[in-house]
């Protein structure tokens, strides 16, 4: 655990609170799906909380974020209010995308959160473009681009890494390797399963980190971000993690053994972190209880906000296809 970030009590507890918020938010989403409040597709982040929370510590307010359809964790870690995310999954007009995107398409331009993207790999070129714009405008910022191990199979992954490296663009490629591309294990969809080594093909610096250890994730991401901000061009950080739930709500998980899931659950990122906090003198029982009740209230308030939200008027169906004509 070299290069451990200097940890003060507030920061330590905040990391925990953020991970618990994501966990409880996702559990509530699952519940709401079973009673039809949330429809369509729903991809839960449970098990990968440390990745979103850890990486987000190294991403500043001026940085851009491009994520995937499993983006609830990133959105919450970025600070988008749980209420506007829940309302979006309800399809309400008060949702963060006005009810137009749903679970897979969270947008919040005020927080430079450029979307959940449902086409695997579709977000990578967008991230490259955002970084290109920042470079051309000599704007000191990086673009954090999240994608899964499945995206590594897309042509756009290779084109994007090449173009970013070629033009030395400030892109922080963050590969959340949860070992499965939906129902296809890593070794069954990649010839080279050590994903970070793919950066070598584009002369791009890379690193790998245990995605279940939020402190390690934060440290690795700070190092990677520093490299990008230093002007050396893009960086590929592979975060090895695991999702405790099915790919989406409609997945009978035939492709993996229950035993394997249990083994990974034994390394639950929240439990791991809680276990180490006392040795650092940060956590007392009331702190944990306070975090749980605070999160529970926040999630309940999010549900109330979503339930109360108005539906969009059908008359507005054709809005937002083109810019409103100003002339």
């Amino acid at each position: 655990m070299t290069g451990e970030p200097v940890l003060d009590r507030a920061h330590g507890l905040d990391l925990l609170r953020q991970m618990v918020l994501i966990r409880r938010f996702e559990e509530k989403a699952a519940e709401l799906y079973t009673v039809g409040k949330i429809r369509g597709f729903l991809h839960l982040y449970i098990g990968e909380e440390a990745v979103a929370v850890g990486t987000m510590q190294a991403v500043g307010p001026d940085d851009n974020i491009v994520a995937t359809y499993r983006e609830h964790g990133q959105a919450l870690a970025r600070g988008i209010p749980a209420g506007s995310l829940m309302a979006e999954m309800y399809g309400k007009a008060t949702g963060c995308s006005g009810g137009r995107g749903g679970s897979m398409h969270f947008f919040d331009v005020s927080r430079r959160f450029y979307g959940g993207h449902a086409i695997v790999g579709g977000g990578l070129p967008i991230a490259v473009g955002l970084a290109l714009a920042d470079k051309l405008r000599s704007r000191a910022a990086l673009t954090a681009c999240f994608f899964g191990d499945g995206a590594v199979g897309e042509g756009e992954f290779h084109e994007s890494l090449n173009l970013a490296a070629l033009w030395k663009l400030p892109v922080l490629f963050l590969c959340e390797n949860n070992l499965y591309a939906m129902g296809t294990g890593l070794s069954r969809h990649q010839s080279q399963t050590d994903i970070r080594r793919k950066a070598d093909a584009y002369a791009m610096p890379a690193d790998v980190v245990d995605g279940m250890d939020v402190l390690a994730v934060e440290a690795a991401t700070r190092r990677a971000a520093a490299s990008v901000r230093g002007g050396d061009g893009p960086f590929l950080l592979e975060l090895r993690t695991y999702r405790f739930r099915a790919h989406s709500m409609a997945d009978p998980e035939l492709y993996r053994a229950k035993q394997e899931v249990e083994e990974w659950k034994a390394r639950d990122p929240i439990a791991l972190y809680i276990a180490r906090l006392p040795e650092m003198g940060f956590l007392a029982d009331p702190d944990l209880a306070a975090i749980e009740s605070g999160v529970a209230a926040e999630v309940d308030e999010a549900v109330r906000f979503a339930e109360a939200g108005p539906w969009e008027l059908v008359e507005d169906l054709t809005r937002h296809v083109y810019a409103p004509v100003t002339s």
Partner: protein
Amino acid sequence: MTKMTYRDAIREGLREALRSDPRVFLMGEDVGRYGGSFKVTYRLLEEFGPERVRDTPLSESTFLGAGIGAALGGMRPIVEIMTVNFSLLALDQIVNNAATLRHMSGGQIGVPLIVRMATGGGRQLAAQHSHSLEGWFAHIPGIKIVAPATPADAKGLLLAALGDPDPVFIFEHATLYGLEGEVEDEAVPSEIGKAAVRRTGETVTLITYGGSLGKTLQAADQLAVEGIDAEVIDLRSLRPLDISTVLASVDKTHRAVIVDEGWRMCSFAAEVSAQIMEGGFYNLDAPVARVCSAEVPMPYAKHMEDAALPQAATIAQAVRQMLGAHG
């Protein structure tokens, strides 16, 4: 007014854009050192430098996607896809990002992007390099499609696109680059969505765009000798479609022939024909006729390619048949 070629008119437009707006930059295969595969961006690299005239790797999906990302990032990119034939590699970015982000984000995001593509056949490049697919793109709400047929419009529509907050796709027929025509010195942006009557007539309305305008005017001249007075309408933009100008003309002539280099079935001509039927049903003395490409992959041999493409003779013949059959 100065006489210049279609390609020079575009270059003037690009130069004016690059000079007047620091946010503008060009991206595309061989647009820099090579000077552009159709010589449109010739010597722009020397004038504006590699930051703003960027040769790209052969990664259409990613550099077009990067164009979208840069547009999100505050730039005004002009992406050149060498020909519409290679745009197929970037269809996902066009359909699922460029055309969709504004809607999916509930109106938070606009994509002020210009994409230029050469299009059409007639140069014996055989099946993979001779497509005319404007009709596909015109099917997609969220983007705009223009097809300049004259040097004046080549510059005018480019300048108009620069002012447009939504993605504009400019289709330049590959046989037009050498066409000469008068261009205003102080070029004023043309209006996207407004058709032009290139020749007035009373007997029949010939409707076309882009590369087919020349052949259509030739057909009108041939028909004039036979006492058939044809009106020729250059649509100039496919989406939005200026159907009112078309209907006003059909209201006068009561006959319409549409000339479109796309394949007949599900062609753009089919859409124009449907809208004429919907809007001008009682003004028709004959069924709307369509002169399109033969439904074959474009053959290489000249006599075969000519047989496949609409020609002045086949356009004139369609009019004679219409008058013969329906009086």
